[in-house]
């Protein structure tokens, strides 16, 4: 390193970016502890009021709703993602593998807004699902999917699924196939060998995938904004409303900080869980 000092210059762009991010974070952090002066973009002196205000039912509910939606999303992406990842890793033909990979990962390459708008055409009152059900005569009037927690959760699962599948597939592909073969040779059928061997050995992947899905969903904005239509709010939507409708930057900043802390706490807990798992086995 010392003999090629010019290499140090390549760090400059990265360092500048890091500096920018750090400055922004510092700004948000200091805003969070400032008093809001109604009708003005200027902020007042130091205060804890923003964090106290968060405990009011109106905001606390949004936090609870966010955590609940994150948990639901993580759980259902795990439920859907595991079989997909398993099939992806164990597929014999490369063609089938490619098909599965495309199906699993495509949502990642569509912008969040485009993806969310496509759900409008599926879930809307005159959308595909209601249209089909009406045509079949199974329902008399359209079912309300839009602006419901179910609709938001569905779209969030769609957004989160690729991340979950990629993380689970990585974990599953690292499990030696001989474990499963050994279980079969010892008399365990596919279900037993899955439950007693493959599933426990993929636990680190499950924890990592669930944690990431949780954190990934916590910052969701466009999906609850469009599908929720203001009736299903998550923390980001609240931050947006407070910041750009009420111009209450200090409160918006404190909400962001708490959201960030909550995400970090969840990831930390998962890390501890994974470490314990590693100590026990694998």
């Amino acid at each position: 390193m010392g003999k090629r000092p010019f290499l140090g210059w390549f760090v400059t762009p990265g360092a500048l970016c890091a500096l920018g991010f750090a400055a922004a974070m510092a700004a948000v952090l200091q805003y969070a502890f400032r008093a809001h002066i109604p009708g003005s973009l200027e902020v007042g002196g130091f205060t804890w009021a923003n964090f106290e205000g968060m405990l009011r039912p109106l905001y606390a509910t949004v936090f609870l709703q966010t955590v609940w939606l994150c948990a639901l999303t993580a759980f259902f992406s795990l439920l859907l993602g595991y079989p997909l990842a398993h099939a992806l890793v164990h597929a014999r033909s490369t063609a089938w593998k490619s098909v599965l990979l495309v199906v699993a990962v495509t949502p990642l390459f569509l912008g969040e807004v485009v993806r969310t708008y496509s759900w409008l055409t599926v879930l809307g009152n005159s959308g595909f699902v209601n249209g089909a059900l009406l045509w079949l005569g199974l329902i008399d009037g359209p079912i309300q999917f839009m602006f419901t927690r179910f609709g938001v959760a569905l779209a969030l699962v769609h957004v989160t699924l690729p991340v979950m599948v990629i993380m689970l597939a990585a974990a599953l592909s690292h499990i030696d196939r001989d474990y499963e073969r050994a279980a079969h040779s010892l008399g365990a059928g596919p279900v037993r060998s899955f439950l007693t061997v493959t599933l426990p050995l993929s636990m680190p992947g499950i924890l990592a995938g669930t944690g990431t899905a949780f954190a990934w969903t916590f910052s969701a904005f466009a999906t609850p904004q469009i599908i929720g239509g203001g009736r299903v709010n998550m923390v980001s939507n609240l931050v947006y409303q407070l910041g750009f409708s009420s111009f209450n930057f200090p409160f918006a900043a404190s909400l962001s900080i708490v959201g960030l802390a909550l995400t970090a706490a969840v990831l930390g807990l998962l890390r501890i869980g994974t470490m314990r798992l590693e100590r026990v086995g694998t």
Partner: protein
Amino acid sequence: MAAEPRPALQVDGVTRRFGAVTALADAWLKVPPGEFLTLLGPSGCGKSTLLNLIAGFLEPDQGEIFIDGALVTEVPVWQRGIGMVFQNYALFPHMTVAKNVAYGLAARRVPREEAARRVAEALALVKLTGMEERKPRQLSGGQQQRVALARALVIRPKLLLLDEPFSALDRNLRGAMQVELREIQRSLGIATVFVTHDQGEALSMSDRVAVMSEGRIRQVGTPEAIYRRPADRFVAEFVGDVNRLPARLVAVEGETALVECGACRLSVPAAPLAAAAAGTAVDLFLRPEQIRTAPPGTPGLTEAVVAARAFHGDHADLHCDAPGMAQRLLLRVPGHAAEGPGARLALLPDPSADAVAFPISG
């Protein structure tokens, strides 16, 4: 005629292809109860394919497989009643030694007290009593192998399959484990199919050896028969060290044929030479210990010059150059024999030599 005992394993004309490659062509095998049979061959010879077909991890394109008299060609692995030791042991890393060994019993819904008793017995058999609560990664390679063996044996399989189980062990441990495995196998009287590419291991451990190459079983026989009467040149060259000398077919008389090499005439099995006419050139195969040395000038197979001598304690290997031979000749002489590099020798066949000859290929 006495009824033949029901074979523990029977492979009837099994063929398996992977795309355009025939991994195993028309394999026939019968393993009687209690026999230790080795599938021996270089990598890619089809031995692992055959083992996987017997275990049920692969399905044959043609042919049938019977285990203990029952047709199992369509039966899934978990219902075949086999025990298998994998090359990497495949011990479940998240389970203790006891849980690993008990796995097959749990799958068979053996009552808990009986399972505990059988796990203890199996661990005693492989001398691992006291290790019950260890995790596989806390064990040495040899101990892991014992657990794998106990796990495969505790379910009292009809057939034990061993996939190169010694390849991960160091040399000293390997020898001890080979002896021990064979003792356990014999005491339980369990029919065993063992896969290896190590011909020394195959000769020392097996009741019978099936030598394989290019997807075919070339010869099945006792280690002695394989070593002394190889059926073709592949078997002769793959099993043990061997010298190839140019010779000429003199005559075929019933079961034996007479070949001439240098000033010597040797009788060899006639079967491999059935298609050759008298007078044609053939390759004569002699083991290193079947060649004697004599002072130069003695009429013999050929004259040779010692190029190198490797001392092995009880014996020494002499690598010799002989005129007109592309390959060096290998002689195994007693360790106290004095011939060193540069010595001129005449080579004679041992009177009791089991020489074989094959038509020149290609």
